[in-house]
């Protein structure tokens, strides 16, 4: 119909070019921070410290990747932190209390995560409980259950020798001794890559965006909205299970009291990374950058020995500024 050709706006080539440029620029705040800290302290830009920063990103990064999926559907997940802990505790039960072999522990962590995620998804999709409440309830239940199951004490993995390798070992370092990247970081990148692939290239990813964009319209198109939504929460839960493995292996123990507060940090990474809390838009790459910005900030300020109370103040101010710069950049790009 519209007979007038619209060559000028339809040039997708241009927008693709702009997209790539934009992606590069998204790193701007991060790069600025890196440069700033490098100039401020000679101890900052050293291989060991960069690895330390990456390792500090791993757990929060994986959680953030998981919660990104849920946020893109227009939901929220407050239970990610305590779910991570719960998965770690279950792994502890499987490996230490029951003495089963390592692979089963890994399956248990991810399976528990997926199952709890599915439950949250059920509350949200079938029982129509607002995601905030459903996952708040889940957070409290899991927090309590972790304490109950573990008997309110840490479960150590001393009997499972390979366990700490999951996070602390370095497969890459074994091949390239000059790059001793811990496995935990490798797992973060693999998880992010997989999640990104699912989001961009699969049906599940498509419905993730579609649900966040206009759930009613998806429903009117005859899609089984509830099932897909539960699937997305389950996937997100499974990813929290991976985070549970990472933290347990890093600490060589499942700490039942840990985890609360981590949800806020993960969600912050997601939002700093440009994903909208109202759903429909977001990227895993952005989330990774968001998580890195937070880790670099914390690490850099500590290296500079800034007093802790001021660290908090500066972190708050820089987060606001970084996001503001990002908003400006995007507005300019149109």
């Amino acid at each position, binding site marked *: 119909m519209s007979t007038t050709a619209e060559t000028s706006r339809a040039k997708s080539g241009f927008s693709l070019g702009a997209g790539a440029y934009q992606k590069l620029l998204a790193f701007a705040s991060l790069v600025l921070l890196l440069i700033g800290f490098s100039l401020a302290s000679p101890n900052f830009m050293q291989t060991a410290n960069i690895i*330390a920063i990456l390792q500090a990103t791993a757990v929060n990064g994986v959680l953030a990747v998981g919660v990104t999926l849920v946020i893109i559907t227009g939901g929220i997940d407050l239970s990610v932190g305590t779910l991570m802990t719960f998965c770690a505790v279950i792994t502890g039960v499987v490996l230490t209390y029951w003495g089963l072999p390592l692979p089963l522990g890994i399956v248990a962590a991810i399976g528990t995560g997926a199952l709890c995620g599915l439950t949250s998804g059920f509350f949200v999709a079938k029982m129509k409980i607002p995601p905030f409440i459903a996952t708040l309830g889940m957070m409290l239940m899991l927090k309590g259950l972790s304490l109950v199951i573990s008997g309110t004490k*840490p479960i*150590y993995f001393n009997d499972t020798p390979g366990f700490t390798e999951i996070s602390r070992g370095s497969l890459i370092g074994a091949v390239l001794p000059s790059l001793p990247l811990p496995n935990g970081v490798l797992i973060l990148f693999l998880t992010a890559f997989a999640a990104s692939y699912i989001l961009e290239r699969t049906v599940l990813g498509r419905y993730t965006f579609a649900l966040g964009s206009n759930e009613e319209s998806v429903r009117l198109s005859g899609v089984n909205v509830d099932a897909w939504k539960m699937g997305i929460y389950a996937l997100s839960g499974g990813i929290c299970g991976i985070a549970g493995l990472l933290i347990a292996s890093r*600490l060589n123990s499942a*700490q039942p009291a*840990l985890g609360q507060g981590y949800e806020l940090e993960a969600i912050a990474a997601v939002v700093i990374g440009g994903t909208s809390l109202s759903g429909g838009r977001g990227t895993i790459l952005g989330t990774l950058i968001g998580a890195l910005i937070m880790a670099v900030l*914390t690490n850099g300020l*500590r*290296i500079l020995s800034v007093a802790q109370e001021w660290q908090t103040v500066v972190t708050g101010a820089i987060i606001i500024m970084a996001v503001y710069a990002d908003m400006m950049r995007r507005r300019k790009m149109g």
Partner: protein
Amino acid sequence: QDKMYIPLISKGFQHQFWQAVKTGADKAAAELGVEVTFEGPDNESMVDRQIDMLAAALAKHPSAIGFAALDSQAAIPLLKQAQEQKIPVIAFDSGVDSDIPLATAATDNVAAAALAADKMAELIGGKGQVAVVVHDQTSRTGIDRRDGFVNRIKEKYPDIEIVTVQYGGGDQLQSTELTKSILQGNPDLAGIFGANEGSAVGVINGVREMGKKDVVVIGYDSGAAQKQAIRDGLMAGAITQNPVGIGYETVKAAVAAAKGEKVEKNIDTGFFWYDKTNIDDPKIAAVLYD
């Protein structure tokens, strides 16, 4: 006939230290045939939540109350209420700044941390840089241990520099990252003091991950990871309190007070230095927990 009921309102719940206090309390309860409950807020800044717990405890008309105040002043109205209702109050952990509690079962945290400072000075040869990783910037135990350590170093060891004091919330992971940044920022560091279990374990993790072999680590409290680190030589030694004893003595004093018996005003449950050499000493082993 109803069992005597004694609620213990502590400063925390999930941490191993508080669980050990609970263990002691439960033990005394079993021995003396009374019923005990144990409650504490999620972290040591939640002063008002602790007050709400105390209020709920009073509503249950208990025979006596055990109380570890996060902030004594804030609790005064409720403590007065307890006094009016003739419910005896026993303070534990750190004291309650008031004459209402009939007895106090506590550790002198300042003195204990000063002992840690002495040990640190001894182990690093009286000079060099040290750092402190504390669990909390504002709680009584955090302040006392930090100040006990820092002041002793300042007073007695002029050649030792305290480069930084950082706070990790007692969270092992956060304390690990914190320690790594401290080590990164201060490559010549000679020693680190971790002021509670979570901090100390975090310090050990951080030192291990950074591959630093010559940093002297001193911890506080016990727990399986810390004990293992001492055996492995990663940690030079640690201060332990007697949490089980605190819990036990608190309940014992509470029962006595409820029966109208006279109780000793100050029950010092003591603190001990332990390291590789004495960790298996039965006297020490008795006050350590996993």
